[in-house]
């Protein structure tokens, strides 16, 4: 593959090592999921999820080695979701109680 020839050899990550980190992170989240500290556990669990996603995206998908504009493609999508979320919070999360809501 021509693109592989262009990449410097040192940029080739250790995929199995990354896998090990991912599995450890998974086990930590599972453990936290069974604990009884709801807020702290939730914050940690979602932080771990973001870290896991970052590892897969940066190393398995090689985003770390792509030029900036490819990163911008992903970032733009996430930014759109961010604005969608912000715009909807007042209406969807804090809506006045509607008749019949459980």
């Amino acid at each position, binding site marked *: *593959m*021509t*693109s*592989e020839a*262009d990449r410097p050899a040192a940029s*080739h990550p250790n*995929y*199995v090592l*990354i*896998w090990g980190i*991912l*599995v450890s992170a*998974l086990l930590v*989240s*599972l453990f*936290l*999921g*069974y604990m009884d500290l709801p807020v702290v556990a*939730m914050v940690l*669990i*979602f932080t771990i*999820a973001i870290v*896991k*996603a970052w590892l*897969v*995206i940066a190393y*398995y*998908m090689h985003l770390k080695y*792509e*030029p900036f*504009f*490819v990163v911008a*493609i*992903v970032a*733009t*999508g*996430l930014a*759109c*979701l961010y604005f*969608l*979320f912000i715009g*909807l*919070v007042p209406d*969807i*999360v*804090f*809506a006045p109680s509607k008749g019949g809501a*459980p």
Partner: protein
Amino acid sequence: MESSRAPASASGFREATEVPTGRLGLWWFLASETVIFGGLITSYVLLRWRHPEWSSEASHTLNAAGGFNTLVLLSSSLTVVLAHEAVAHGDLPRAARHLGVTLLGGLVFLCVKAFEYSHEIAEGFTPLTSLFWSYYYGMTGLHALHVIGGMIAIAAVALGVRRGRDAQRVEYVGLYWHFVDVVWIFLFPLLYLAS
């Protein structure tokens, strides 16, 4: 002006950036999928925030099954990227084998999911039981459809690779598979652990 180091395509027309056209197209495709799944997940998060009582409903999802499935998908991401590495070293038979293992991972994932669905329906939790369950089945169902689609694509590429062609597509199908894995990385805490 000219990106003289850029690889030339078969007809002599070369690419204007250093990112190969196939890979660039695939990233744009993944961006479109990100906002589709992202829209669905955002809707779920908003409703979940509004309905704290959904925590008790979410406690009925099987954390062990979800956790195991996460392990399966993470591992299949490993095997598919190893397939990509094999292609980079010119070892197409090894790449095909890794793709086969990846396929197996997808199959295991779907079997576990099917088991979960049948268990949950037997317990009386159908897509119509409550809005939480509607989201659960909707989101995991859409994800499972993407897993199936990915498996079909991987199988097609694996067949091609065994015949010694389409090697560059291993990377593309791998990128898609990683995306499916990343979506699950978020679905797992959202639907299983947050309870």
